[in-house]
């Protein structure tokens, strides 16, 4: 598929799902009502308040999280030249969660201050994952061992998280939704000051797109073509990790968007160029919005967690990708 039609297609899907997200829910709202609520808002009309305060805020959060995680995953997959990496499979999510929990438990941090321990946790997790992968692969570059290292990192950090929570479960009572990755009704509050991270990150990614694309050719080729591989790799990591962390800070660890969205992008329009980046951004948003619709309506009136829905679908996708990768190598 060419980039143009692909972009049009994903944009249409995006707006369609946005509309569906606003109308669907525990109680169906007619499109006319949603339209009224958006453009002729009446604060005394309860249904208008529901559409704006509960659905629109959720929609914005879901879209932001999906977009940011997808871009983070695409950047990581490009610079590491490994199509199994993503913020969750590298252990970035678990590292951030562990450090946030430490921050709350040891220093009583809250609100905006939690971004910093999460960021440290993300970088620490990547470092540990690379160290572990180096141990496993004995210097040979094997894409699977990086994922294995990431999985081990995630286990390590989630054990630590569990330990700290079991010390004082009551204190983390209101964090349960965040721990499994859920979009709550008040998640738009942290987003209000975190959105610049996402916007600058995606902006920089668009600007640096050409250099990052060069790196997908391999280190030597990139160096010949005038990019400094080390600098680009470090710079991209410094972009991708804060992007993922800003999503984790808002909704908790939502996995596999960063894995699946780049794969869809690659299948449909290829992975290089700015249109691919834009496609991937929208694709991530579409995935999380769809997951949120599913979470709200599958067992309605009961709510499911977006993180759980994503883990269920994304885990299956991960399984398929792993098996496909292995088959390709065995053949």
């Amino acid at each position, binding site marked *: 598929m060419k980039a143009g039609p692909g972009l049009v297609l994903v944009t249409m899907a995006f707006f369609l799902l946005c509309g569906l997200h606003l109308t669907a829910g525990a109680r169906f709202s007619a499109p006319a009502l949603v339209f009224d609520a958006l453009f002729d808002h009446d604060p005394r009309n309860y249904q208008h308040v529901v559409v704006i305060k509960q659905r629109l805020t959720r929609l914005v959060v879901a879209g932001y999280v999906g977009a940011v995680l997808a871009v983070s995953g695409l950047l990581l997959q490009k610079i590491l030249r490994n199509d199994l990496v993503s913020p969750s499979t590298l252990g970035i999510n678990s590292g951030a969660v562990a450090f946030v929990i430490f921050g709350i438990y040891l220093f009583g941090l809250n609100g905006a201050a939690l971004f910093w321990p999460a960021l440290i946790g993300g970088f620490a997790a990547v470092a540990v994952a690379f160290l*572990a992968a180096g*141990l*496993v692969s*004995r210097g*040979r570059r*094997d894409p*699977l*061992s990086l*994922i*294995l*290292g990431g*999985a*081990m990192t995630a*286990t*390590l950090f989630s*054990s*630590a998280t*569990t*330990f700290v*929570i*079991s*010390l004082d*479960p*009551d204190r*983390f*009572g*209101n*964090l*349960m939704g965040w*721990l*499994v990755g859920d979009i709550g009704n008040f998640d738009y509050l942290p987003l209000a000051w975190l959105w610049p991270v996402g916007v600058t990150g995606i902006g920089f990614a668009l600007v640096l797109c050409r250099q990052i694309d060069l790196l997908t050719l391999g280190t030597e080729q990139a160096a010949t073509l005038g990019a400094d591989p080390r600098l680009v790799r470090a710079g991209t990591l410094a972009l991708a990790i804060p992007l993922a962390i800003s999503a984790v800070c808002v909704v908790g660890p939502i*996995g596999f968007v960063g894995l699946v969205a780049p794969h869809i992008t690659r299948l449909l329009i290829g992975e290089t160029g700015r249109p691919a980046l834009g496609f991937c951004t929208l694709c991530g948003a579409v995935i999380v919005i769809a997951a949120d619709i599913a979470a709200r309506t599958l067992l309605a009136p009961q709510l*499911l*967690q977006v993180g*759980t*829905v994503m*883990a*269920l679908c*994304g*885990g*299956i996708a*991960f*399984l398929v990708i*792993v*098996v496909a990768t*292995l*088959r390709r*190598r*065995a053949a």
Partner: protein
Amino acid sequence: MRRQFTLRLGSAIHLPIDLRPALVLAALSILLCISTLHALQLGSTALSMDDVIRWLMPWQDADAETSAIMLLRWPRVTVAILAGAMIATSGYLLQVVSRNGLADPGLLGISQGGMAAVVIGAAVFGLPPAWLAWASLAGGFATALIVMTLAWRLSSSTGLILVGLAVGIVLGAAIEIIMVRGGILQFARWLAWSHGSLTSVSAGNAGMVALWAAVLLPLSLIASGQMMPLLLGHEQAAGIGASPRRLSLLLTLMAAALVAPIVAAVGPISFLGLIAGHIARALVGERPVAVMPVAMLCGALILQIADTVGRTLFLPVIVPAGILVSIAGVLAFLIAARLSRSSR
């Protein structure tokens, strides 16, 4: 060079005994006895060693206070030993069947399969506790078959583990959907259980685990005599007259059965089978007959020590044994992955 000595009973029966495994087994048994005594003695109220020994002697009656404390402590200690031995056995069986030194019931998703079956059985169908171990067996065996089929013929040792981890993630999400419905207290308890915790073990659990262990541990020791051909690979094994396919299936079923009661009572304890298998092979070489009992004792010893350390070292905080084992296990896994031959 293997040093042997032959036990001669009369003129007809000569039993050749390898010196090295025998010595290792003896040393591990002594260590296990010592650690068990300490596990019974230590706790939030430490007892004196005399009291413990007097309580253990059936012909002397212990004082009431000791008996009361022991009533709480012995099921936990028993389950720690049996669970350790059973998980280690299961891990070693899987390592032989998949010919992959990194296999472990927790890493291949078998424990998660069992957990999912337990949670769904208990929460959705309201199964009585006695049936949970059977549900766990069914779930674990089904998962084992799925993982092994998916990773079939993918000559990569990390591939099997990644497939197992992916299946584990899907099952974990399914469990999460059900477990999130309670409050944070239940969620915290679930988190502890999902890493394996011996805190809530009762005498009933101990009895159930002991019953399964009494059947399965001797069976696996008998099976270890038949496992040697599998180490050669399927073609060679078939070539020398073994039937590898049937044997593999049987051993996988046994591996799932070994973890089933543990998952129902304690939760999955990942990495234990991996660590125990590796230590055992480092100690006595590759022969399954020798490795199996040594792995059992290693597993029992590790879980026993992890549990005792977890509940005594950081008092008043009690660290679930599973967390200690996972943290130690991640490090052991990385070392094991580095040491294991990459060609497998």
